[in-house]
Each structure stands twice: as structure tokens, then as C-alpha cells.
């Protein structure tokens, strides 16, 4: 990755992320209310985006099933089950990552 490309990627990311955080302060400065459809989109979008990102993380599972795929799926299971019962973000991320690293190491 070239430096100008990296710089462009960083500037773009910062501008978009800060812009999104600041957007409501620009739009809703007065008493203006959010339109209903936007409210709906705001409720629906995050979980859909997160679902796509999970697929993104698991994209190489079918093509490399024996190498890293099955390990990834098992580790996802560890995260899901432990989080379902304990509801501790830190604990589940730690446990799942440790499980994945160990599975990769031993199998």
C-alpha cells in the first residue's frame, strides 16, 4: 500500500466517521423531528449491517473448510454460547479468540 493511498484512506475514514457522528447536530439543530422512515431505517440498519460483516469475517470458511473454516465456526459457537449465558463482552471475546488460536495451533 502506497503512502498517498494510505493517507487518502485515513482522511476519508476520519471525515466520514466524524461526519456521521456530527450529522444529527447539523440537521436537528432546532425542533425539527426525524422523519418516520429514517427512524425506521435507524432501527433496522445496524443489525443488517452487522450480519453482512459476520459473513465478511467468515467469507473463507467454505473455501478453506479444513484449514481454518471449521475452527472459525467452532469458535463462533464458543462466543455465542458463552455470551448467551454470561453476557460479558470481554469474557466472550477473550474465550472465543483463545479457542480459535488453540484450535488453529493443534489442528
Amino acid at each position, binding site marked *: 500500500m502506497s503512502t498517498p493511498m494510505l493517507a487518502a484512506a485515513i482522511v476519508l475514514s476520519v471525515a466520514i466517521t466524524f461526519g456521521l457522528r456530527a450529522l444529527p447536530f447539523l440537521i436537528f439543530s432546532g425542533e425539527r423531528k426525524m422523519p418516520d422512515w429514517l427512524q425506521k431505517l435507524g432501527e433496522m440498519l445496524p443489525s443488517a*449491517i452487522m450480519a453482512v460483516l459476520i459473513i465478511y469475517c467468515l467469507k473463507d470458511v467454505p473455501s478453506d473448510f479444513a484449514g481454518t473454516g471449521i475452527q472459525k465456526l467452532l469458535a463462533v459457537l464458543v462466543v455465542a454460547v458463552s455470551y448467551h449465558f454470561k453476557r460479558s463482552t470481554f469474557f466472550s471475546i477473550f474465550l472465543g479468540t483463545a479457542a480459535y488460536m488453540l484450535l488453529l495451533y493443534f489442528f
Partner: protein
Amino acid sequence: MKISKETWRLAFVKSLPIMCSYFFLGAAYGIMMEETGFPWYVALLLSMTVYTGAFQFVLITFLSTGASLLTIAITALLMNSRQSFYSLTFLNDFKRMGKRKLYMIHSLTDETYAVNCTLELPRKEKEDTMFGVALLSHCYWMAATVAGAVLGQLIPFELEGIDFCMTALFVIIFMDQWKKASSHIPALAGLTCGIVCLLIFGQSSFILPALLLVSGILFFAGRKEAAE
């Protein structure tokens, strides 16, 4: 403007759960950045300026696979759009915070949102505590990033598989959203669009069409529902 010692103490206590997860995730982020070939100061710069864990992880894989600026921009836009909705919650609180307003806007994350949402305090203490939580969390994140990047350099072997913590983070956020959601259709639409686009476009270029497709579907679904 001066924040009292008691308020700092309260902010620290409130920020403890954030500290745990930021130290681990931030360190993992620093290690991944180092292993991808970025120096520690680039990792720190990103943690300071972009400061949104989930997207920073995705950005590493984008940078290392040479994704286009368009892909980066659209993904940032869609992934971080949730921050806009967090901001909405604090419109009135932040507006009163004068000079701190811009920093409060910049430092809003999933975690600080969750903690600052639950504060029930008189106005001055609430604002000071929110600021304290935001500043401390930002510092944990940056410190952990640098620690991870340095650690990654010191450890002679590769920490193979550390990148899984990005997957784990997404699974957890997804489960939280699943629990809160009144309808699971958006989540299932996301999974379906992701898988279908993966099959059609292949591993290296499916993320952009998948994100666009599912947000397009939800946009029209939302409009239709709002119109009814």
C-alpha cells in the same frame, strides 16, 4: 468547568467495563496492525482519529487487500451510520457542553453510548461524568493500541488467529441487537444478502454489493412501513 475528584472517580468506575474490553480489543488491533506491516504510530493515529473499533478492524483487511477507496467509503458510511443514531440520543446534552461538544461528538462509540445513556445525575455532574467516561475510554483505546503494536514487535512468533476477535466482537454486537430488535427480519435479510452476494461475487468483492443491497431493501421497506 473543573471536574471534581469525586466525579473523576465515578467516571472511572463507570468506565471499568469499557476498560476491560478496550484493552483486549485495542491490543489485538495494535498486534494486527503491526502484523499487517503498519508502524505503531499509524495504528495510534487511527485509534485517535477514526476511533471506532469495529470499522478500524475492517479497515485493516481493506488496506491489506488493496480495497478501493469507494469500498472503504461506502463501508464506513454504512457501518458507522449507527453513530448518527447514537448522537441523536445526546443532542440536548452535548449542545449544552460548550467547548467539550466537539470532543463528545468525536468520542461517541458503542460502549460510551451504552454507559453514558444510563447515567442518572444532576446536570453538571452528568456532563462532567460523560466527559470523563469519554476521555478515559479514548485513552484506554489509544494506550491499548500502542501496547499491542509494541507487543506485536517484541513477540518473535506470529499470533496466528488473533484476528478472530473482530469476528467475536461482531457476533456479540449482533446478539445484542438481536435481543433488542422487535423484528428479526433485518438481521436475517443481512445474513441472506451476505451469503447470496458471497456466492455471486466471490470472497474478494462481495462486501460492497451486499451492503448496498441490504440497505437498499431496508430503505424501501422502511419507507413503505412509515407510509402505512
